[in-house]
């Protein structure tokens, strides 16, 4: 059976592509590839179509960085949310976690990561210039910094606070409802709502 020979042919190619996904090692990639081989054709093609569709349609919102099929995204397009607080998060999945708590009615700004000198990520690699521009244009009443409670998230929060305060806008940081070293993504809606309510000026 030549298709299963590791690292060669069509099978090896899929394994190689799957391994690019964070958290997927050789074993998992091979398991998924075997599963795909056994799938009925229409289900396997539906999977590849879904990937193609996703890449063709979903783009970062030009305003906030949220992933969306429309541009600007639904949240930025919602006039009700305009001029209120602006919530700054590291990644889109953090935005979704806050959205699902239902405790926030303003707009978001996705930085695309957090400061990390070890990985060579300085402020210039994050969407901070865009944030400053938005604050000047949209004049939000408050900036809520909701970066993760990790060393990187805290450093990013402090950097933003020092940078944004001179603009005359109120800057707050979400409360430590989220466990230290944890990830917003994994906080339950109730914890998230409490963290948002308990925010403090920085």
């Amino acid at each position: 059976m030549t298709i299963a020979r590791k690292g060669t042919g069509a099978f090896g190619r899929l394994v190689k592509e799957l391994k690019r996904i964070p958290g997927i090692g050789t074993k998992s990639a091979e398991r998924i590839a075997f599963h795909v081989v056994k799938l009925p054709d229409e289900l396997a093609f539906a999977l590849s179509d879904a990937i193609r569709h996703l890449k063709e349609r979903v783009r970062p919102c030009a305003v906030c960085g949220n992933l969306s099929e429309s541009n600007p995204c639904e949240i930025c397009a919602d006039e009700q949310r305009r001029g209120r607080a602006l919530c700054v998060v590291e990644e889109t999945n953090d935005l979704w976690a806050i959205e699902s708590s239902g405790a926030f009615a303003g707009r978001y700004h996705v930085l695309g990561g957090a400061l990390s000198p070890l990985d060579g990520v300085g402020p210039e690699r994050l969407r901070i210039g865009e944030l400053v521009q938005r604050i000047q244009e949209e004049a939000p009443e408050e900036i809520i910094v909701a970066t993760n409670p990790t060393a990187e998230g805290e450093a990013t929060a402090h950097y933003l606070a020092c940078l944004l305060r001179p603009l005359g806008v109120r800057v707050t940081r979400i409360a430590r409802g989220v466990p230290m070293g944890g990830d917003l993504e994994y906080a339950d809606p109730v914890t998230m709502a409490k963290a948002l309510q308990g925010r403090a000026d920085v």
Partner: protein
Amino acid sequence: MNVASLSLRAFRNYRRLDLDFATGVHLFVGANGQGKTNLLEAVYLLSAGSSFRAMRPECLVQHGESLAEVTAMVSEQGQDTQLAFRFGRGLRAARVDETPCRRLSDFVGHLSCVIFSAEDLALISGPPALRRRFLDRIIFGLHSEYLGIARGFSQVLRQRNALLRKLSTTTSPSAESEAFLDAWDEPYIAAAVRVLALRWEVFARLADAVCALHEQISGDVDSLRLSYRASAGAASSAPTEDALRGSLETALRRRRAEEKSRGATLVGPHRDDLAIVLAGREAASHASRGQIKGIVLALKLAEMELYRRYHDRRPVLLVDDVAAEFDRTRSERLFELMAWADQAFVTATSDEVVPRIGARYQVYHVESGSVERRA
């Protein structure tokens, strides 16, 4: 806590050994190279999952064999736990009561040991990192949250150092580099304060216990003083978190230029040390080997005393080559103190060290991989 039985298979020079132990002091006597220390090493292996002689477990397999196994029944307040550690090239399997452990951390901690061997003398004369590790290891055992706190600190330290390294090699505008550093100072200080708060708490108790125990060992001739030497500058004996924060802030501000040019964080728990002063003089440079041994012993016994106070648990005491460089008075005092552990395993080259005191002990003669119990 005590080891009720110990079995070795293809471990070092023991092809097959099965021993039962009561509580009290167990003294292994034999010439050098006969395998006395290997017995302590086996017990230690079950407690830490590694050798105290800094060897990879696969190096402990008997020559010509591929697999070794050490098992023991450990008793703690009437509860028995079976520990088994099997290892060889490319294999490490640990079981607790026949249940395989997925991680080493599930295995360590069932048996608490305090070891005292020649390697430990470096604790006084070696680099500060050894003393920090000694203190940190005690804190890990006493406060389960310290592991997370220490990891959090080392992560933010690595980040801050990476930034400083970058700033030391590039010529970015100084206002900008100041803002970059400011951003990391706050999480750095917060993480450092969390480490230091527990360090100071445990250190204060350790220092008290060490001084009292050292007095008992040395017979009150030399006074021992221990102090925590903080890189952030002198502090009171029990600083509050605010005081710790304040001294870190001040020291970081004062040394910022130096940090930027050297590309490393120079102030914090990773730069602290324990100062050990005997009769008014720095022990590292002035104490004799016998005195150093007495101090290290006091440190180790103090470690046991802290376990007892915090967890109401007495670790098993392991003492390698008890008599070397100890005079008769000190050896006798040591045996008195040993009796105060539930159980102690001790090696010596001759049974002359067996004191005339009332400690319950059992002597074994060790010769080329066989262990014989003496009446």
